[in-house]
């Protein structure tokens, strides 16, 4: 016992840190899953082994099999975030610039934000068909709310004295928007876009699972229909990794552009 102590204590000390606990949890989960998958102890159809899932994932990463679907989903999510930002930021600035407008509009936006956006999908199908544009529209409307609401939140933080100074030196309202409001609210707007990205991904890909011709969401349901469960898990993992990478890239980019945005990372929890 006395001999084992010097080797086990540093290991225990390493495990007894948040990072150690997280690593241990993930390791136990992976090993447990692999055992269940290999032995077929629990729902053999539902738990393929981790190695099987990773093999599928490797195929997605190294072959062009997913390229058309990634392109379709990227087009939808990219278009959605662009439209949501182009509408959400100016409207957020407009609504947030006058207290009386804000008092009227804000509760309406908050109530509308609660409605699940996917239920508007049948309306978009009627207007835009079952091609990529109806999914793009669902993604755009899902991303619009976090972007506009966080723009409004940013507008609330703008000090009135900045605007007063600009007005006294005769700056036009358009220039006040671009030169005073935009830099002051950049941090919140960036956070809004980042959260909006998550909402757009979920909205567009969920719509793809309902009805589509291509896309990553469409492929999830295809694999589910063919009962290719390992492929389905691999694709889900692939989507989670892509979403996390996009989120990290946006966070880094916005962090470089605006030091303020680094402070407001937690708001994502509530959208």
């Amino acid at each position, binding site marked *: 016992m006395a001999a084992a102590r010097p080797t086990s204590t540093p290991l225990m000390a390493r495990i007894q840190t948040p990072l150690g606990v997280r690593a241990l949890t993930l390791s136990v989960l992976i090993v447990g899953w692999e055992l269940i998958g290999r032995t077929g102890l629990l729902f053999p159809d539902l738990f393929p082994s981790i190695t099987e899932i990773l093999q599928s994932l490797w195929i997605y990463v190294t072959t062009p099999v997913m390229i058309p679907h990634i392109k379709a989903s990227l087009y939808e999510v990219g278009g959605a975030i662009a439209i949501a930002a182009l509408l959400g930021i100016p409207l957020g600035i407009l609504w947030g610039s006058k207290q009386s407008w804000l008092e009227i509009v804000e509760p309406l936006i908050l109530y509308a934000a609660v409605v*699940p956006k996917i239920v508007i999908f049948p309306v978009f199908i*009627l207007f835009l068909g079952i091609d990529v544009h109806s999914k793009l529209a669902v993604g755009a409307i899902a991303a619009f709310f976090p972007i506009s609401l966080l723009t409004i939140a940013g507008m609330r933080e703008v000090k009135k004295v900045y605007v007063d100074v600009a007005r006294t030196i005769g700056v036009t309202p358009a220039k006040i928007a671009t030169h005073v409001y935009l830099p002051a609210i950049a941090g919140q707007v960036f956070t809004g876009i980042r959260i909006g990205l998550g909402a757009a991904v*979920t909205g567009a890909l969920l719509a793809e699972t309902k009805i589509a011709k291509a896309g990553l969401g469409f492929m999830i349901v295809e694999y589910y229909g063919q009962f290719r469960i390992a492929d389905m898990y691999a694709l889900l993992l692939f989507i*989670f990794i892509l979403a996390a990478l996009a989120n990290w890239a946006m966070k880094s980019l916005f962090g470089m552009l605006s030091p303020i945005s680094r402070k407001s990372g937690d708001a994502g929890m509530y959208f």
Partner: protein
Amino acid sequence: MSESTRLTAWRLGLIFGALLIVETSVRAGWISTFFLAAPTRAVIVLWQQLLHGNALVLTGITLFEITACLLIATILGVLAGFFLWRYKLIGTSYETLLAALFSSPVILAYPIFLVTFGRTSAAVIALSSIFGLIPIIINTKGAFQNVNPILLQVGASMNLTRRQLFRHILIPAVAPAIFSGFRLALTYILKSVLGLEYVAQVGGVGMWLSDAAFKFEVEEVYAGLFGTIVLSILFLYLINRCEHWFRR
């Protein structure tokens, strides 16, 4: 006219103004009824479905699913949040994992739940409970963590037992923050339940909307959409009233 009445009048004016524009556009034939139903027609169809169709039963199923999710999320969430607060290392470690899980598009994994629970309400309840569970866990942990230590010191100086301290100081101190988590959870559960019902075509109101869209029954689609929006808004309104009453 009081300030709040004036604001409500403005808001109602905006909503009914927009609906009037849609109604006029459809009735005048500017927009084809193939794409858009007149709001009055949608309301009439919804009313007929409530009286003679099975909209009431479907609403009941949706409400049952929401209630079940809320119960599961609240019971498990409060217990897990308390546990994560009591065991600081586990709490700190898992909070990040929970936040990561919450921000990832977990809802896309719904086919796994359909395989496990079948095409039943159980699949909707199981997945939607996760969306309610995480905000409750995080808010409960935060609530216990942020209790003013002076309150506990006062309790200790009055020689309260651990049980009395928990019952008379901790619980009232954490209740408002836990309620905020409950409010968030209900919002996420509502979105998830209605969304999943529509996408997976199971359960209540969402399934009705999906069926109507599948049959290209335009008026029924808008009636279902109207019903879903009203249900969502009603829920949020009731939660806001409850929170207002609770905080008084």
